[in-house]
């Protein structure tokens, strides 16, 4: 009756392909074409510039609270770039770049944060869920969606995003557990940005990595440099392929950093030092990738300027479209839309009550 170590089926790797100087590990460099690399760059840059624009709109009082993504572009774009359109994206609330990559419109993002429910609309054919604000709860939806894919014998994959804080929520553990037990095609992507509002990663858990939590559920996990878009993409592609070929779920922990505020209602000076943030500037995912693209001669400064101008224009047009749309959405009675398939009698009465009140107010 010896006491001996039990062998576990998985271990935790750390993956990094592109270093801070933009130098690539050629053995690990993913085999993708130039256009794809340019697309990754554009997706990240658009995410950054849009974030900056939203912050301005918020500061001008034209929008309410939102959760900025700056610094986390690689973790998002690298992951969703491994999906097909027929796959599903299940976001939390800090994946704007990923949502837009997948086809969510910028004007809908603006509408939502400007306080219009219609901003949550998802057009038919786009397989994104709306954002989920209760931390960690959406992980279960992704597992259930993936079960349905498997049940219907469709070779699709669900990818769900969540933060480091979310790994303390019970739902996250239940989701990993269900996904493991039923071997469903889901990819769990954790954006470990080191903070859950003011709570540092170290106070979230004693675990050395977040990725290792997957192991407890019989699910493979990997930790990647979340500011390295090539590493995130490679890990995501591997996980997506595993899921698609019927070999079940995976978890990817992207180690990144929240460069900005938690939300526009937050003041990080209360709990972290500027120096902590500055250390991460050198690890910026976009700068690093641009260096790499230039070193591969895919890209020149001139080309970057052209893309910047294009993005600026796109964002400008989206802001204009959203403003036009807001004018159409002025009727408060719209709040009664989309409760049930049919409005029951007592809600029709309440609708009528508000309608009369609004009519009186306007006379």
């Amino acid at each position, binding site marked *: 009756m010896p006491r001996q170590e039990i062998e576990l089926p998985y271990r935790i790797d750390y993956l990094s392909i592109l270093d801070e100087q933009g130098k690539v590990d050629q053995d690990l460099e993913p085999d993708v074409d130039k256009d794809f690399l340019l697309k990754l760059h554009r997706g990240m840059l658009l995410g950054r510039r849009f974030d900056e624009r939203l912050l301005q709109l918020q500061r001008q009082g034209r929008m309410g609270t939102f959760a900025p993504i700056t610094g986390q572009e690689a973790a998002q774009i690298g992951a969703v770039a491994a999906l097909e359109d027929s796959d599903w994206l299940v976001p939390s609330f800090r994946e704007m770049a990923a949502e837009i990559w997948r086809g969510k419109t910028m004007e809908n993002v603006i509408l939502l944060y400007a306080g219009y429910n219609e901003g949550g609309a998802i057009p038919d054919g786009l397989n994104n869920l709306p954002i989920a604000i209760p931390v960690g709860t959406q992980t279960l*939806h992704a597992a*259930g969606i993936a079960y*349905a894919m498997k049940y219907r014998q469709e070779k699709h994959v669900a990818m769900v995003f969540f933060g480091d804080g979310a790994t303390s929520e019970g*739902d996250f553990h239940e989701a990993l557990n*269900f996904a493991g037990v039923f071997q469903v095609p889901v990819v769990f992507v954790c954006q470990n940005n080191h903070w859950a509002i003011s709570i540092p990663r170290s106070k979230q858990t004693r675990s050395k990595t977040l990725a290792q939590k997957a192991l407890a559920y019989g699910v493979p996990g990997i930790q990647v440099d979340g500011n390295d878009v090539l590493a995130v993409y490679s890990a995501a592609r591997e996980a997506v392929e595993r899921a698609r070929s019927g070999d079940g779920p995976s978890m990817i922990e992207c180690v990144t950093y929240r460069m900005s505020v938690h939300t526009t209602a937050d003041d990080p000076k209360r709990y972290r030092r500027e120096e902590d943030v500055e250390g991460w500037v050198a690890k910026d995912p976009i700068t690093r990738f641009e260096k790499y693209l230039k070193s591969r001669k895919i890209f020149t400064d001139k080309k970057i300027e052209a893309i910047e101008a294009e993005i600026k224009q796109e964002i400008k047009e989206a802001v204009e479209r959203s403003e036009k749309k807001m004018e159409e959405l002025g009727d408060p009675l719209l709040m009664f839309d989309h409760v049930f398939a049919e409005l*029951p009698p007592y809600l029709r009465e309440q609708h009528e009550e508000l309608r009369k009140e609004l009519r009186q107010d306007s006379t």
Partner: protein
Amino acid sequence: MAKMTMVQAINLALKQEMEKDDNVVVLGEDVGVDGGVFRVTEGLFEQFGENRVMDTPLAEAGIIGFSIGMALYGLKPVCEIQFSGFTYLGFHQLESHAARLRGRSAGRFTVPMVLRAPYGGGVRALEHHSESREAYFAHTPGLKMVIPSSPRNARALLVSAIRDPDPVVYFEPKALYRAFREEVPEDEETMELGRSRIAREGKDITLISYGAMLHETMQAASALHQKQGIEAEVIDLMTIAPLDDALFIESARKTGRVVVIHEAPRSFGPGAEVAVRLVEKSFLYLEAPIRRVTGFDLVIPLFQREKAYLPGVDRIVRAVRETLDF
């Protein structure tokens, strides 16, 4: 037609809906091989296999959240929570997501799931196994809350709940699971959600109830009739939300006197909503204060004192007499 218990009738609804529609999937703790702790899902695992009758890990948020995902993708999950007293461990999934995804996505996504759970007292159970907290769910915009009162309506309501495009919480009065049998047609039968029914006609007073308490109410009504010739009209709500007030308002206008009966705690309970609707819509017809015969505002006591807690025939009869004498 066959005479069935409520357990058999619910089982029939599940079986027939599963035969008809591949999208219907049953999941929960012990619902598969074991057939459910009350045997409601008996035989389904054998007939439909483990992909459609899923024994899940023991995690209520997991069961509910997973069901939401399945429903978003177009399946029609019918999940069982072993006792309604354990729904709270997954309540946030219902409240924050099932009820809201239609609105949040501006109509793109719906959550056509059913959550079944046995509720209520009367079976000499442990703590957490006897409660009646339908108000939590009925209070949640976007959820439907259904409670049948007999084998036949249990079957028809469940079929309608499964076909409903929105999330339905379906509480089964476990005290009635095997209390009596009723003819249940073999052929498909549905019953529109959001509709109450007249369980007994009368002109002197209106008694409004649902679920297990409907039977106490019916017995009280027949005792009143036999002993004193009082003709009570009994309304069975069946759907708590969306609440159908048309029928009971019409009845109250006719009788002028109303007693509401449920085993849920009194304050902020369904009876409170019923009473206010009556005041709002038939105030001038009322000839006596609306009475509530309900559970007390306590955690339901363990079973030695349960009988004194639950509304029973005597308590209902007394409330009726006082209301008539007012």
